[in-house]
Structures are given as C-alpha cells and as structure tokens.
C-alpha cells in the first residue's frame, strides 16, 4: 500500500471512472472531494463510478466526501456508484450504514452495466 492516495480519472463513453489508491484519510480527502465534485458539476458525463479496489484505509472524512458526491450527483440528476470496495473500506461503510445508501458493485463493468 502506498502512503499517499492517488487519483486517476478515465472516461468510458459518458461515464467517468475515478480510481483511488492508497489510504484516503483527512490529509487527502479534501483533494478527493474536490475531484469528485469536479467530475459531476458542469461536466457532460452522466455518471461517476468510484473504483476502490486499490484503496487501503478510509476514515470518516472520506465517507463524508462520498456522501457529498452522492448528494451532488442526485441534485444534478446524475448516476453515482462504487466498485471494487475492499474489506476494510466496506467495514467502515457498513459502520455508517452507507452500504445501504450507495450503489456498490464488484467491478467497474458491473457498475457501468447497472447505470444503464
């Protein structure tokens, strides 16, 4: 696991894939929050999929970033989904009962399929 979260953006058709890597904590979650909002607000893409298969530790500040992005997507009428959520991150999502809120898929392809 790297010490610093990295973030990659990729567009597949009209969906943006955001790949996160490393630990997403208070030190980097503001950067993640800005990136997610930037993918949603004022862009032509109709949905965002956040791929978390390479994420290590996550905390409440990252969860807050996801909630913020999810609410922005809903407000704009866009799709939002998570993919490849690992055991550690899923545990934190479940702790906040957010596994019942966010659409969560095993793979990016599954998420894209579900977004229609």
């Amino acid at each position, binding site marked *: 696991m790297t010490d610093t979260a990295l973030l990659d953006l990729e567009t597949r058709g009209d969906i943006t894939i955001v790949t996160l890597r490393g630990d997403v*904590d*208070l030190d980097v979650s503001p950067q993640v929050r800005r990136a997610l909002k930037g993918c949603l607000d004022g862009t032509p893409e109709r949905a965002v999929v956040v791929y978390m298969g390479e994420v290590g530790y996550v*905390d*409440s*500040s990252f*969860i*807050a*970033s996801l*909630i913020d992005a999810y609410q922005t997507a809903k407000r704009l009428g866009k799709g939002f989904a998570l993919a490849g959520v690992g055991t550690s991150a899923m545990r934190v999502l479940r*702790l906040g009962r957010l596994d019942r809120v966010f659409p969560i898929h095993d793979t990016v392809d599954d998420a894209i399929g579900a977004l229609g």
Partner: protein
Amino acid sequence: MADQGPVPGVLLAEVRVPARSDQLRVVRRIVRDALQGSAGIEEIIADVVLAVDEACQNVVRHAYSGLPPGDMVVQLFQADRKVVVRLMDFAPPVDVSRICPRDLGDLRPGGLGTYFIRAVMDTVEFRPPPPGAGNLLEMTKRIR
C-alpha cells in the same frame, strides 16, 4: 511528560506529533504495529486504529481550530483483556456537552467520526487532563 494519573496497563507505544493531518498516517502505523505485537486480532486492531485516527482528527480539526496547531500525544496500553488509548492535547478544553454523534438517518457529510469512535470502542470518556494539557480522552477496547 506530565503526570496523567494511574497507568492503566503496560505501555505498548507512545507518540507525540504535531496535530496536523499529515501526521495521522504516522500515528496509525505506530498504533497498528504496536497492536500487531500484542492484541493481534485484526478486527480489534482495525477498530482501535480507526478510533485513534478519528479522535486525532477531532484534535486536528476542532481542538486547535483557529489556533496554531500544537502537539497531540497518543499512548497505547494493554491491560488485563483490554486495550486502553489515551489521547492528550494542549488546546483549550473542549465543551464535552457539544460532542455528540449524529443520527445515521441524517445523510449529510460530516459528524460521523464521533459515531465511529463510540461504535467501535467499549468506553470513551474525557478525563481530567494533567497540568499543562488541555484535554485527555481515554478509550478502551475489550479483547475477547
């Protein structure tokens, strides 16, 4: 370091760092490494690491809010069948009555950290800080 009252167990680790977000990964690594050599149960380690990280975040974001960041001290003890964490800062005393976890049904960013701490630890309480310190938070986690 100032006297913090009776020692609650065997000291496993102690770290003093500036209360900045870039220090959180340092604290997490030290706590994780110390517990892997003692408690050794991955679920318990994950819970304690999360609670320590979230409590340190509160110090970074709230205790020193509007002030130049001071230090925070994390001590990790192992007592009989439990892990004890003490987190001390040198900020003005917090108003404990204003610290409360948010309702999970209220979907909004923020406010989850305190909920996480209370959800994963068995006890969480502010104790009288030693002279010179601002706040002393003590958390315990039973080892089953």
